[in-house]
């Protein structure tokens, strides 16, 4: 255990460097792996879709695109970032694995705030509340865990949409 003055100095240095970084044009929050910047420069948002009508529906034709309210929302979000969505339709577990490996940016599929994946992915703040079987269900989307700029921008977008 370091002596109190030494710890204090370490802490002061930490505070100072955080302040400096903040002052040097690093935006807060930032994605540790730069996901949103990559989306904006490459023009591609990789979206995982697990079917869960009416939020997400399977493509009508094998080559078609999925539909549903959440797919429409994500498409608008992608456009707002100057990107096009690229869909991967899979089961939830596989999508979570792809998200963890950084192969996807966003996953939609009627996810709720009670999702068991909450320790593996970053769940957004609920954007919609519905009532199912007399219980309130809070609907969320999933992003790469810890990519906080992406998450913040998506939440901001969903807030705007809710107005």
């Amino acid at each position, binding site marked *: 255990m370091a002596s*109190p003055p030494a710890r204090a100095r370490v*802490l002061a240095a930490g505070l100072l460097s*955080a302040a400096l970084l903040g002052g040097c044009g690093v935006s*807060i929050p930032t994605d540790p792996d730069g996901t949103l910047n990559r989306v904006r420069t490459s023009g591609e948002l990789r979206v995982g879709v697990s079917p869960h009508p009416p939020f997400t529906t399977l493509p009508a034709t094998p080559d078609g695109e999925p539909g549903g309210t959440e797919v429409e929302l994500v498409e608008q979000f992608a456009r707002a970032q100057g990107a096009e969505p690229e869909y991967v339709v899979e089961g939830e577990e596989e999508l979570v694995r792809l998200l963890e490996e950084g192969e996807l940016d966003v996953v939609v599929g009627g996810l709720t705030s009670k999702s068991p994946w909450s320790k593996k992915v970053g769940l957004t*703040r609920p954007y919609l509340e519905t009532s199912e079987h007399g219980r309130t269900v809070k609907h969320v989307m999933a992003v790469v*865990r*810890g990519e906080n700029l992406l*998450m913040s921008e998506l939440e*901001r977008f969903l*807030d705007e949409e809710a107005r």
Partner: protein
Amino acid sequence: MTSLARAMSSGPRHGTHFGRTELPEDVQEVLRRARRLEWVSLAYLGTGVVLVGLVMGSSQAMQAAWIEDLLSLIPPIAFLVGARVAANEPDRAYPFGRHRSVAVGHLVAAVALLTMGLFLVYDSASGLIERDHPPIGTMQLLGQTVWAGWPMVAVMVYTLVGPVILGRMKLPLADQLHDKVLHADAQMNKADWMTAGGAIVGVLGIGVGLWWADAAAALFIALSILHDGWSNVQHAVTGLMDRTARTVDDAEEHPLVGRLEAYLDSRPWIRDHHTRVRDMGHVFHVEVRLVPRDGRADLARLTQVGDDLRAMDWKIDDVTVAPVHRVHEGETRTGEGGR
């Protein structure tokens, strides 16, 4: 439970007495101030716990700081309960008084700290090892969407300021009351700014994209909780082991012990003596065994010794003076007292 309730209702003795000992006016005033400060601490920390709970989200550093704030409610409660219980007059059920309530409170608080410290070290270290990237998104505040890190920092600044001031104010009172729980509480409060500062560094670290900053800050906070817990367990246990009375910060033997012995040394009619001073919490119990030079027990002289010792300090009230033929081999003090 009923006997505890009875002990709590110490009535008019509360604030003026520790057991049989009536406190001098100035010490009563110190006790009043200490109690007021502890109530203020509870209110301040209570609001802090609520605010941190509202904004902490999934930041490990914030969660560690929240648990620390929650734990720091225990010592003020232990002090307030202990001072109240200790006010009771000794009775048949508790012939030595209820001074040990302070030590009990101290041990309970210390074990809570130690346990939480261990848990948090494990939790934050595994966060680092698993390379968990904590998500901190936004929250809605007054209709605005803001990054959730900013309210976290604001709340931590709030919990940073109060305890430091309160801790500095409590420290001298703990010395005057000889209350180890109050001392431990003041020490923890004083160090609390590092917890809050650590959480701020962690949250801002995440903000600028350093995913490990949060878990590292949580580890730092956990280690400081562990350190507090360990040193407090040591102090509480050695106190309960009837170690000779020490200063409230446990740094050295209490100077009163030396003064008692010096007084006994200075009596020409005492050939040898052996003194045991037990810190009951607030007050000392003193047992003096002495060998009179002329081999006779003179009641007036023995009473005088008791009165003189009691006059030294309010903490010395319960004094037993026993004349003996000889002080046991191996128990004598070495030094100027001699035989």
